[in-house]
């Protein structure tokens, strides 16, 4: 193996970078806020995790870049980790030194530099002792990270799963408690009393969860992977194209039951979160067709969401302010989708000859135009202007009025399943191949006999239909819609989630929506830093895993079939 060369200076540079990150998290007040959320009592808070995350990240990049052997990794991890402590130490000395305090108070400039922050950096110790502890702690974390990167994946995976799940349960202890509380006969309540004290895991329960997860992951990885019994495993393609075997049927049934019972298991708040995630899955699946399959970068996707929502709103309201038609939800739904499709085509026509960045800019403009039109006085008689459309009808399903998060969850669930189903089947068809060929090379696609105009408009129309459906459901849930509900951020969100999830990948859309829409909802108290975390996630993803969490699968079409033909040929040979 080629020895990677580096100098001390490289390591110090990386360390300083880590140091800047660690300092930054503190100076913007993130550390202090995150420190209030305890994960494992009494010693581990979310702030601690954040404190070390800068070091972990930087060591990860440094080790991957410089260290090829285990010894090198140790060295790199220790040095980079220790150097990362520099700026926080400088900060805590400046903040605590009385000599400097006489000249100027750092807090006047950086409001987030509080005594509490210094305490976090110093682990509540005296500055000098605390600094030493910080250096040592960072070095240890650096070494552990390096060691972790260099271990066998067979050990790495279970450890990672254990850590992630334990910290996750600690972080969402409140939600977990709530879910457990809904279990019958108070079993859940006793479990949660065992697991948690003061809304955080106890050391013992954290250890148990960690060992269990790691153990199970390790055990599952060791099992031989024979095609049939790979545990929880069926691909979307199987559902759509091939039959399922019995084990897969059972798994699918379990998933279905869980999905159906979910809102009643998790309660109202989490149902609302799930509803939002579902909406973005709907939109993500639609945008995935436009961007992921057809390769048309559409930044104005929110427009079709707005068309769906406004059509639903205008058709179902019948108040003096908004003299609508007073249709019910189900009658209005096809119109909402149709209008969205129509505008998908109308807005698609002018951009037929545009590619790449030009297309992105123009569609971005379209998205904004639609929002501004909705806001305008000119269209106010129809669309309500800034006042929006109020009192939108709730869907009534066999006499049951649906309006609560729990019931509307079923709407998005049904919508997502339908749309996912359509998306999968279209992808594996002539149209899907047309889209992908167009994405890969427009000129050649045309030379293969593909009508580009038709193919592009189909992508825009179907994408718009999915988004229009999402908009219609959204407006029925919130009852009142306003132009500012349809801002650029929705388009950005939908695009980011398919990029993070894995462009062109349907499971990726689901994961992307859970991570980018679900997590922020659960972490409301940190919403101040939502966009920052978002940005960091996107950058890190692009650096570490540009293909997304779940990259689009490559479908094997030849191999399976070729085995068949081979046996056929053999049969012919033997018979003749």
């Amino acid at each position, binding site marked *: 193996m080629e020895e990677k060369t580096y100098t001390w200076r490289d390591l110090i540079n990386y360390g300083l970078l880590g140091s800047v990150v660690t300092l930054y998290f503190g100076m913007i007040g993130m550390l202090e806020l995150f420190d209030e959320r305890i994960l494992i009592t009494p010693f581990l808070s979310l702030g601690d995790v954040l404190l070390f995350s800068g070091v972990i990240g930087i060591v990860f990049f440094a080790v991957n870049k410089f260290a090829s052997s285990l010894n090198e990794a140790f060295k790199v991890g220790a040095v980079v980790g220790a150097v990362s402590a520099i700026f926080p130490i400088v900060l805590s000395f400046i903040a605590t030194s009385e000599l400097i305090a006489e000249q100027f108070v750092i807090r006047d400039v950086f409001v987030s530099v509080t005594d509490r922050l210094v305490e976090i950096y110093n682990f509540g110790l005296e500055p000098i002792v605390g600094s030493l502890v910080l250096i040592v702690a960072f070095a240890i974390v650096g070494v552990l990270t390096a060691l972790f990167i260099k271990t066998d994946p067979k050990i790495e995976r279970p450890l990672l799963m254990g850590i992630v799940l334990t910290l996750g349960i600690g972080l969402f202890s409140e939600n977990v408690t709530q879910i457990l509380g809904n279990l019958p006969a108070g079993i859940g309540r006793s479990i949660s009393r065992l697991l948690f004290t003061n809304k955080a895991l106890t050391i013992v329960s954290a250890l148990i969860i960690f060992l269990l997860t790691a153990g199970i992951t390790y055990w599952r990885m060791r099992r031989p992977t024979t095609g049939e019994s790979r545990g929880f495993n069926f691909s979307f393609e199987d559902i759509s194209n091939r039959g399922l075997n019995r084990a897969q049927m059972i798994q699918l049934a379990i998933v279905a039951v869980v999905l159906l019972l979910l809102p009643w298991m998790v309660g109202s708040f989490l149902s609302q979160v799930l509803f939002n995630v579902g909406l973005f899955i709907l939109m993500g699946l639609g945008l995935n067709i436009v961007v992921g399959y057809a390769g048309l970068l559409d930044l104005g996707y929110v427009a079709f969401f707005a068309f769906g929502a406004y059509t639903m709103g205008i058709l179902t309201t019948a108040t003096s302010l908004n003299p609508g038609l007073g249709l019910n939800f189900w009658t209005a739904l096809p119109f909402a989708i149709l209008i969205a499709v129509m505008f998908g085509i109308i807005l698609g026509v002018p951009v037929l000859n545009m590619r790449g960045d030009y297309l992105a800019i123009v569609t971005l403009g379209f998205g904004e135009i639609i929002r501004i039109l909705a806001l305008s006085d000119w269209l106010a008689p129809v669309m309500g202007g800034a006042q929006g459309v109020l009192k939108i009808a709730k869907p009534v399903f066999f006499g049951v009025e649906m309006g609560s998060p729990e019931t509307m969850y079923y709407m998005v669930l049904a919508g997502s399943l339908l749309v996912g*189903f*359509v998306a999968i*089947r*279209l992808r*594996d*068809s*002539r*149209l*899907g*191949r*047309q889209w*992908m*060929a167009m*994405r*890969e*090379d427009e*000129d*050649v*696609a*045309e*030379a*293969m*006999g*593909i*009508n*580009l105009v038709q193919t592009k408009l*189909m992508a825009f129309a179907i994408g718009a239909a999915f988004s229009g459906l999402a908009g219609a459901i959204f407006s029925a849930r919130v009852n009142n819609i306003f132009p500012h509900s349809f801002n650029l951020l929705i388009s950005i969100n939908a695009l980011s989630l398919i990029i993070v999830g894995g462009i062109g990948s349907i499971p990726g859309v689901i994961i992307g929506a859970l991570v980018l829409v679900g997590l922020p909802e659960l972490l409301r108290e940190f919403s101040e830093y939502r966009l920052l975390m978002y940005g960091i996630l996107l950058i890190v993803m692009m650096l570490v895993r540009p293909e997304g969490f779940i990259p689009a699968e*490559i*479908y*094997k*079409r*030849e*191999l399976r*079939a*070729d085995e068949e*033909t081979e046996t056929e040929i053999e049969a012919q040979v033997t018979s003749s």
Partner: protein
Amino acid sequence: MSTILETKSVTKRFGGLVAVNALDLVIEENSISAVIGPNGAGKTTFFNCITGFYTPEEGGIVFNEKEIDGLRTDVVTRMGIARTYQNIRLFPAMTAIENVLVGQHPHLHTSWISAVTRSAGFKDEEESALEEARRLLRFVGLKGMGDQLARNLPYGAQRRLEIARALASQPALLLLDEPTAGMNPNETGEMIRFVQHLRDELGITILLIEHDMRVVMTISEQITVLDYGTKIAEGGPKDIQSNPKVIEAYLGRGAAGGIENGSN
């Protein structure tokens, strides 16, 4: 033998530059013809005019007794002209077999609705398309490579995959743009035999652009020489080899005499 393709004084200009100048060409059915010429002579532009990628400013192109100049590329393809590219242009992130399936596009007809409902017609069509794609992969010698991404295939395999993709549209006329570019003598020999095989077995008329004179002289029955967009010579391999204008175009003025007496 009847004429499959005829161009009548086709002219294509880019601003002031005349890329193809009043080019007349007649291609007989079931023949192998070549267009040669120095770099920048307008050969690929001429191909682009035939396939409808460019619309010629003047002149007409008749394919199978139908006017095709000014038609869109996809329409021309549907009429039975397929092509490959000088710098291989596959769909890189699709598998080899998917590339061939895309090539079959003109012959598939099921609508997107039947794709969603997976109607019997859709299943039959997909199954036979897949079967045809496998057959084509075997035909070009890519058996077993169908599930690899096109971009991961070795160079020679990519060239052959491109031909398989072109064949998938069941063309009457196949335009090959430098099919042996970047190949070693062994591979070139194989390609020569393969092109002859295409014509002999499948009855496809072949028009190719080629720089390798050994290939051109071995397989073409008719050779057209372009220089600065203008046809300077036409005829069989023997006529072209000894044509002083051709030698001049390739080697410059004054070289003609030397080559004529030489071994070439």
